[in-house]
């Protein structure tokens, strides 16, 4: 469904990502692992269109989209849950969800989906008309996921969703991700929380300093010394 070929991203003279190949097939969970500065966030920003790419190609359902603006990519079915969640704290919970559905022209269906999200997350329903700034970290993460859901995406990309969350909330979050995936949603999961990510993913890639150093199934990667090296050093 999503194919990335030879992708290179540079900031000025710094190469954040070098010649990366990666694919997310329909309905699968793919995880990208690596320490800080490995280029994971740059990958997601390039995919959604926030960062221009310096080389390579991004194909979505067979079509090259790397020259399209972010808004069109979202419309085509890509959604990003950014690092740090980036909730719009000056807006209400409900408005955050509605902005998530910004490009959609079927308000009735959107309203139904928002109701479904409230059923799934009763905490959000309680605070639907309050400013999002009053949500806890876990609730904000749920809202960010909910916001990506109502965009009607078929691929959800998550950037470090477990960051700053307590273990219980992380566990709940991953349960949710698995459930969403069973409903047919493909996931591209960028994580430092390696074990958690590998426990849900179908396959994983390990990045170090912008380059892919390992790729395989979770079992293969867990057995691979290069994974631990990427985190805790030699």
């Amino acid at each position, binding site marked *: 469904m999503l194919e990335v070929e030879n992708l290179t991203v540079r900031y000025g003279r*710094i190469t954040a990502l070098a010649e990366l190949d990666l694919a997310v097939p329909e309905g699968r969970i793919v995880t990208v692992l690596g320490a800080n*500065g490995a280029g994971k966030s740059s990958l997601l920003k390039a995919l959604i269109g926030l960062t221009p790419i310096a080389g390579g190609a991004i194909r979505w359902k067979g079509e090259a989209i790397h020259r399209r603006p972010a808004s069109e990519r979202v419309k085509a079915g890509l959604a990003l849950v950014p690092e740090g969640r980036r909730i719009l704290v000056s807006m209400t919970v409900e408005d955050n969800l509605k902005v998530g559905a910004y490009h959609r022209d079927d308000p009735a269906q959107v309203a139904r989906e928002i109701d479904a999200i409230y059923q799934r997350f009763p905490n959000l329903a309680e605070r639907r008309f309050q400013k999002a700034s009053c949500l806890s970290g876990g609730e904000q993460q749920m809202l960010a996921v909910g916001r990506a859901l109502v965009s009607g995406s078929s691929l959800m990309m998550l950037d470090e969703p477990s960051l700053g969350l307590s273990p219980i909330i992380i566990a709940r979050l991953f349960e949710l991700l698995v459930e969403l995936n069973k409903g047919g949603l493909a996931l591209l999961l960028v994580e430092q*929380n390696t*074990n958690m990510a590998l*426990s849900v993913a179908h396959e994983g890639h390990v990045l170090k300093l912008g380059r892919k150093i390992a790729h395989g199934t979770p079992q293969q990667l867990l057995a691979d*010394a290069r994974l*631990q090296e990427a985190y805790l*050093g*030699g």
Partner: protein
Amino acid sequence: MSLLALDDVGKNFGGLVVVKNLSFTVEAGQRVALIGPNGAGKSTVFNLITGVYPLTSGRVLFDGVDITHLPMRRRIGLGVARSFQNIRLMGHLSVVENIMLGQQPKAGGLAALLTPYRLMPRHRWIEEARAALDEAGLGAYADLSVDSLPYGVRKRVDLLRAVVANPKMLLLDEPAAGLNERETEDLHDALMAIAAKGVTLVVVEHDMHFVDRLCERVVVINFGEKIAEGTMAEVRASPLVREAYLGGDATVGAGHA
């Protein structure tokens, strides 16, 4: 007496607890790493030590002085200097001028403030700054705008700017992030040289290999709490640390600790 002591330090942002009951000490001349997963509160600890944020609870002592309520600039005057995670060089100043900003804690005084040093090409500030750049092998960049420098060079200038203040303690926020292996190696050597002059180093870093080689002692925090302390080997062996980094029950990478 320890050079730096954090005593039961806590920090909340609104309702969010970022640092909780954190205590650790750093002895003069030591090289200590502060590590932990992303979002664990490491940079916040630096900001609490330098006074960017006020503490919610607890105390910070530096060189025997309680600095908990001192304004930022006074703490710097006592001998604390730091580098920045996202390099914070002054884009409107040249490289040598950035270094001269680093001299500020020891320049002092109204007369120093109003000396038209730029009309005196032999002025000791300029000489010193250039000498420091030359020594670091950055002399060729002295008169360029920092915006035009490659990333690695900017990182080194950022570090050098903190060093020229002659601090007693240097706080380094991810000094190796984004550097390639060669540059990381150079950085290691440079930091060892600084430490050899008696400067205490406190490092926040994700590159564990780098930390292992540089630091004698490691403090690990997660969710703002200290979860382990000791040598790198001791810390690696801690199940709490493995869980913090790798999540779940740590069954990863047998034999590598």
